[in-house]
């Protein structure tokens, strides 16, 4: 497929995705919805930190800043996987439009890309709102000092790290969609599982050195780990020497996962078509 029509289809799919995600309510309720879940996630780790530190008799604001940034960065992971992990099911069972999409000249790929891009945009809204409210609640209401100097933040590196992270997550979304083409069981849980695994292994709220050997090794092979580290390095030190090694690994793994995502989705699509299960539905 030529690049221009592909991008045009992706753009319209992104627009459609945005409409589906937003037109069920007014802008204020929408903002509340996009704030409440990630903010509650931040409150969970924040309160575990407070309760655990209180019990241990030791409160490290440095550690709090580490997990605050990890949790905020993780919003992209949970929201993009949530959308891409259920998209095939939504089209197949909820709106029954998978067949119609499949027979269009553009087919599924630009559609998936567009929907994932709109999820990335919505995640940005969520992330910014959570960052603002989280900073206010923890710094001012609960009195935990965030050790972030806004003048030291390397903004270009931060932007680039986020973009590479989003690219990895969108590619992963192709793999998740491939799995859903072959299964009718995982639509509600796949994204929870994937984000659960990344939450454990991705250097989000505790250092992976705490993990047993093989899991620690697996952690160092995940793009999410380097995405979160690159974001932290950009915000906390702002020095390219600290950012570049993480960003280079993130770039390399983003390329690998993009290839794997496209090949994996293609293979799943072929298999689903061969088995005649492309539009299979099941209810129980």
């Amino acid at each position, binding site marked *: 497929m030529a690049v221009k029509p592909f991008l045009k289809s992706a753009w319209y799919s992104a627009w459609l995705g945005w409409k589906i995600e937003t037109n069920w309510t007014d802008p204020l309720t929408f903002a509340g919805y996009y704030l409440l879940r990630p903010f509650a996630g931040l409150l969970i780790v924040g309160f575990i930190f407070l309760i655990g530190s209180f019990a241990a008799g030791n409160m490290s604001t440095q550690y709090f800043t580490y997990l605050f940034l990890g949790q905020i960065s993780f919003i992209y992971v949970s929201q993009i996987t949530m959308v891409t992990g259920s998209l095939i099911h939504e089209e197949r069972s*909820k709106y029954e439009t998978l067949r119609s999409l499949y027979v269009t000249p553009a087919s599924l790929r630009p559609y998936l890309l567009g929907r994932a891009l709109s999820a990335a945009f919505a995640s940005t809204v969520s992330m910014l709102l959570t960052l603002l409210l989280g900073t206010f609640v923890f710094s001012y209401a609960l009195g935990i000092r965030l050790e972030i100097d806004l003048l030291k933040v390397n903004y270009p590196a931060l932007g680039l790290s986020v973009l590479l992270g989003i690219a990895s997550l969108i590619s992963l979304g192709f793999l998740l969609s491939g799995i859903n083409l072959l299964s009718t069981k995982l639509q509600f849980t796949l994204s*929870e599982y994937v984000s659960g695994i990344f939450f*454990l292994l991705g250097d989000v709220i505790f250092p992976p050195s705490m993990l047993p050997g093989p899991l620690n090794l697996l952690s160092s092979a995940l793009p999410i780990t380097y995405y979160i580290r690159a974001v932290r390095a950009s915000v906390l030190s702002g020095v390219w020497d600290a950012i570049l090694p993480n960003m280079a690994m993130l770039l390399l793994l983003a390329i690998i996962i993009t290839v794997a995502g496209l090949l994996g989705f293609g293979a799943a699509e072929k298999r689903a078509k061969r088995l005649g299960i492309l539009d299979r539905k099941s*209810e129980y």
Partner: protein
Amino acid sequence: MSNPAGAFQINVRAAIARARVRIKGTLHDPVWLIAETIIPIFSIGGYVLLYRALGAPASYTGFVIIGGAMIAFWMNMLWHMAAQFYWEKEVGNLEMYLVAPISRMAILLGMALGSAITMGLRVFGILLFGTILFGVSLSIGDPIALLLIFTLTLASLYSLGILFSSLYLLWGREAWKMNELMQEPIYFLSGFYFQVRGNVVVPLAMQFAAALIPMTFGLEGMRRILVFGEGLQSVAFDIVALAVFSVVLFFLARMMLSYMENLAKKEGRLTLRWQ
């Protein structure tokens, strides 16, 4: 139906039939069942290791294992109970339920029964793997108290599920988004990963808000029995609260179901798809 005994019998049969569909649909693929049990351990592990990184006492990791296991029931209530009428509407089964000579409650109770059985297996697996993997010691100090707390937690939870399911007779995506909003915010408020009641770190207003959610009492009771080895006396308050929640929510659910069905019929939205 003029014969009350006959009506009761047919409703029991409908509930059992609906439960069988749920059980067979869930258990017919053992690989999937194993995956559903093992994979949630990953996200539970994140919170366990956070407590360890902070140097918190070992009992705190027990809270996480219990909370993480009970999330399976909460999710089940939200997506396979509350939202189920939405799916039935989308695939065209809802009309069949409505024209059949059975009560809607029988269908929903059947779903609840089937879910309780299949989720029970999963929750047991999560508790087993979680305790072995993270070296957490849970002990059943008082099995009767545990059974009471567990049964009443499920009764109140699934009554809440029936109550929420009535919303789907009228709404589509709005109710769907509400379901999504009842995940992390409820995990936080109910204290799935930490004690809420009597915790000096948790603000009083939050403790009061948590008392409006039945799961808070279920989790608190289970923690007291499984982590601290306490007995019936120390969880009596939780048992009473859960019993009250179960009765009130069940009757409220019945009323709401009937009210929302009538309203949806009046507004012509009962079988409206793709909302």
